[in-house]
């Protein structure tokens, strides 16, 4: 893969996010159909990654984890394509559970690029009391496999994760589940086009899920 430093514009700040993607133009019936097709493909039999796939994709997911754990949201944002999504269904037992369909169900998070930007700006206002003090997280990903896809020019990587979160005087809490990352080439490098977080307990209540998973 390209050097990871190539991904980041060092001068890119939350002010750049303020002016980026202020309209929401690509979420429509076709996009929801794509996410349903993704969900069907995620149940495919995965194969362990080759060395090249590890360099290109696993490394990016591991670095994404690292950036989120450092609350470096501005760099995290740059790992994504211009028409991306970050999606956490409020449903469990995926991909089999029909309650996942975001066109007809609310989710824990369904962010297009604009709402990802909103989320970062919101976290950076300094007055989001649910993140004052902030959550400190530790993401652990393992079990990376490449899942077959019928879509040319895309790579689907599935992985298992554990996430621990500590905030203020609250006890450390643990989330777990699997993730699906769909990679696409943009501006000559692999970027995350669609990220799905399938929580073990997505259908249940959670305490203050205002940090990024």
């Amino acid at each position, binding site marked *: 893969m390209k050097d990871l430093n190539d991904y980041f514009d060092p001068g890119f700040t939350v002010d750049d996010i303020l002016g980026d993607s202020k*309209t929401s133009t690509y979420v429509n019936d076709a996009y929801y159909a794509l996410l349903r097709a993704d969900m069907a493909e995620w149940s495919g039999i995965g194969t362990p990654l080759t060395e090249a796939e590890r360099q290109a994709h696993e490394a990016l997911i591991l670095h994404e984890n690292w950036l989120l754990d450092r609350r470096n949201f501005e760099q995290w944002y740059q790992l994504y394509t211009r028409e991306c999504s970050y999606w956490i269904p409020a449903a469990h037992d995926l991909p089999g559970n029909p309650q996942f369909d975001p066109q007809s169900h609310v989710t824990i998070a369904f962010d297009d690029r604009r709402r990802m930007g909103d989320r970062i700006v919101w976290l950076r206002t300094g007055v989001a009391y649910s993140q004052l003090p902030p959550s400190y997280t530790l993401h652990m990903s393992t079990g990376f496999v490449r899942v077959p896809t019928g879509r040319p020019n895309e790579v689907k990587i599935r992985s298992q994760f554990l996430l621990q979160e500590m905030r203020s005087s609250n006890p450390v809490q643990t989330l777990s589940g699997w993730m699906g990352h769909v990679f696409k080439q943009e501006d000559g490098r692999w970027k995350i086009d669609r990220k799905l977080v399938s929580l073990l307990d997505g259908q249940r209540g959670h305490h203050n899920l205002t940090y990024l998973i």
Partner: protein
Amino acid sequence: MRDFSEPPIYDDLIETDRVHRTLYTDEAIFREEMNRIYGGTWTYLAHESELPKANDFVRRTLGLRPIIVSRDRDGKVHGLLNRCPHRGATVCRDDAGSTRRFTCPYHNWSFTNSGDLVGVPIEEGYGPNFDKSRLGLGKIRVEVYRGFIFGTLNHELPDLETHLGTAARRLDEWMDRWPGGKISVRNGQHRLMCNGNWKLVSDNSHDGYHPGYSHASLLRMRKDRYGGGVDMQWVLGNVDDGLQRLYDLGNGNTFLDQRPEIERYWYQSAPMPGEDSYAATLRERLGERAEPALDVVMGSGMNLNIFPNLLIIGNQLQVIQPRTVDSTDLIWYSTSIEADDLPPEVNALRMRLQEDFPSFGEPDDLANFEECQAGLSIPEMEWVVTSRHMDTGTEYVDGNGDLAGLPTDELGIRAFWKEWLIRMNATTKLEAK
């Protein structure tokens, strides 16, 4: 410091302009509330659209009591205590489904979906005097108002619609935004856990004072990215100079009306994924008829609070589910509108819009409620202030005969405590029959 030794005299804890902190922290009071408040009045249980067909059921709670809300084979709605009359086991263990019979897994006693005991294995072992007709599931008094299912164990209360009074009219306004449309509550939920007493949640939903401060993050994010004009900007500054109003609808029900601040729903909506793409699709297909459809994407501009556990906020039904004296589950049921003449894109947009406040608004509220719970644990600081606008001469009686006031008035909190006191002091026997 006052000595509130057991048993607490509730009248001593509620004064005209302040209430005592132990109402939020005392475990004995909490246990009494779960029995006397929840089930002592008409309490929201479920929405009919969640059990659309004959024999459907959902599992819920009434206070802390596990219950089943079911339809029998004729479609009539029942509320049943989910407790086996034999030895106490939970009979129904599925959250939702469809069945003619509930069978207790322990010794397989079985019940119709209206609660009657119809099967007992090796029944002869109970001898000749065994009377199955006296051993059905406990029955809750249930009534439905336009799809909203309420239940109570108080058999002396008037019927539901009479009890709701003007709150029923406000509920009509909330339901009838798209004429002929039917509200559907089958679109998933946000479930938020809060380490605070349940009443901190209800206090807040008739609190028009806090938004400009508690929701500074949401307001600042919106303004910095999109400029003025979008969603909720009317809560900035001195909102008492604005157009919102707060109403005491009687029986503890209250209403914070933000609608007078909304000139055009679609343009004042919060941002949502799909906004521009779907608006373009609809305008191309429907021309000017797209505009009223887009307007029902946005939240209603209503906070309608039905004592003790149903808070209708925006397009959502927020149900309070107390867990312990200092922990509460908040369930935000999302809704869609079913109507032949409503384009389906509207409901896809509604899903995305209903993620906005649970993401960028409610978490900051919950963080504040938890800090209230922490503060209220201090014994030497005994009271909570509820006097705002009590004697500023700004309250009035509206055309419906309801007491009304400015948005920062604490009349909603005072109305809540008035009803709370009536229910806690009531001597009516609560019965499942």
